[in-house]
């Protein structure tokens, strides 16, 4: 059967892009009995938080850098103990059919640990794995992931 190249009908499978979202801060609340109160207070003050993770010692979440001062003000008012690590970024590996692909996280760790990049936090969705790294490490992280997933020369969004 002969056929001419036609429209691509489906998303490509596998990793097809590395995305970077910077200008973020990692907030760590170490008041385990106050995390929900703090979240409510942040919502009441119109401060969007995302990538919330629960830990034995409290919780971590991400805010955009512009909200750091207000997060600390709200936390003080609760009161809760919250520390901020500024200047962090998400480096995300984006793939089609992620839940059908095993081993993406292992390859990410291979690449980033091998490149000496410290992974501060991880998260995953059906189409991406997100790694929080310091902004100073972003270019190293992107290069390592591009190399690992053979996206050198492109694939960064």
């Amino acid at each position, binding site marked *: 059967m002969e056929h001419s190249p036609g429209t691509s009908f489906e998303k490509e499978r596998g990793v097809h892009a590395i995305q970077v979202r910077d200008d973020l801060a990692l907030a760590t609340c170490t008041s385990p009995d106050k995390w929900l109160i703090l979240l409510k207070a942040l919502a009441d003050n119109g401060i969007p938080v995302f990538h919330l993770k629960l830990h034995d010692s409290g919780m971590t979440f991400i805010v955009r850098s512009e909200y750091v001062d207000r997060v600390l003000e709200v936390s003080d008012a609760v009161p809760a103990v919250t520390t901020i690590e500024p200047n962090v970024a998400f480096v995300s590996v984006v793939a089609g059919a992620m*839940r059908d692909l095993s081993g993406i996280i292992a390859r990410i760790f291979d690449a980033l640990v091998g490149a000496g990049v410290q992974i501060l936090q991880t998260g995953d969705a*059906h189409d991406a794995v997100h790694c929080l790294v310091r902004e100073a490490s972003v270019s190293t992280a992107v290069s390592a992931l591009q190399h690992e997933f053979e996206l050198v020369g492109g694939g960064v969004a």
Partner: protein
Amino acid sequence: MRVMVQKFGGTSVATDEARALAADRVAQAVEAGWNVVVVVSAIGRKGAPYATDTLLGLLNGVDPQVSPAPRESDLLLACGEVISTVIFAQTLRARGYETIALTGGQAGIVTDYEFTNARILEIQPAYLLQQLDAGRIVFVAGFQGATERGAITTLGRGGSDTTASALGAAVKPHVEHVEVEIYTDVDGVKTADPRIVKDARTLSVASYAEVSEMAHQGAKVVHPRAAEIAEIHDVPLWVKSTFEEAPGTLIRRASTAEDSSPRITGVTSTGKLVYLRFPLPDVSDTDRAKIEREVYRLLRNEEISIHLSSTGNGAFAFAVAREHLGRVSELIDGLVIPGELGPRTHPPYGVITLLGIGSTGRGMNAQRTLLAGASSLVDIRVVEADMVENCTMVSVIATGIDDIPGIFVTMLGVLDEQGVWLYQTADSAYSLSVLIREADSVRAVRTLHEAFSLGTAGVCG
């Protein structure tokens, strides 16, 4: 030419009565002036003589120790759809309509060579369009295609939805208008599983992204692959009931103000999961990352997928499907990982991390005994993972999450008030998810559905 692609699932063609109702839907479309393409799944579900699982069981039953070749599996599995397609075509032929039944390959669906989970490379619709133009109803066997060399392939899970969506996309450039209808046993996309939430509403309109996210998070209406294809090619997709007269749900690109405004769309639950948390309170970030890497490498070798991964704050954690627990335990319980083995002049010469699952892991205790003799030379760091066996993930699906104030805290707050213990959370552009005990799943879904007023006027559309 105006083309309607209608897809009927296995339950819609399982009995004479169901087939008659499905045939009514086809006839109605023809009488309304549509040129109709019908995509059919295999008849019935597991146990039915020609259902996909039945055919697979037949093949695997030859010798359970020898896996069938994927190519031959596909050749057999494709038969289920071929049988139902021909029978359904005959049903309409018996009503006096001109019909033709085609395999996926005959309909022009060209796939790659990944047998059992093939990807559509392109569709050559010329023959199908020619048959439509001749006034025939074209029946196409779902779930299948063919390689360039004509080997029959199957499209994997949700394959018939994918076929319908892809055929709609293929004919779109050649016709005046095309729509795709997915017929099932519910009357559209619901705000929750109606078996769990009695007042679950049917959405009149949803975006491709919303439906795709709902499907990924456990809703069983349209396969996400079909929604993704429809979105790429901007093909309107309807979800309707074979058995009820109801308008159904229109899935389309979020282009209107109503479609794209922030809203909460539904609540889903999915997965039988096991949550494993490895406390590493006194471990450097570098060592923690190395330990994680070793664990993930082992899971990769076994093709075990990881969900809800989390790291930092003196621990790392993830969930795996419960069916993998036995193998995960074998791999991790007793795993020894060397660390910090740099040159030193006196003991301890390094640190060895010994992983276990719980304090009673046999592998860990056996290794601990073996390593006891080395404890004067190296530090033995024992890490006992906490394990929660019966977990599931409950998700709230929403558009414009960043613009819905307090959605996350509302979700967590009402679950907390209900005494639902939260093990972990996750968020994406279209969903917020919590990992909870499976025993709390029904209560959590009902609580969230009510909290976000999804059963009343809380949902647009």
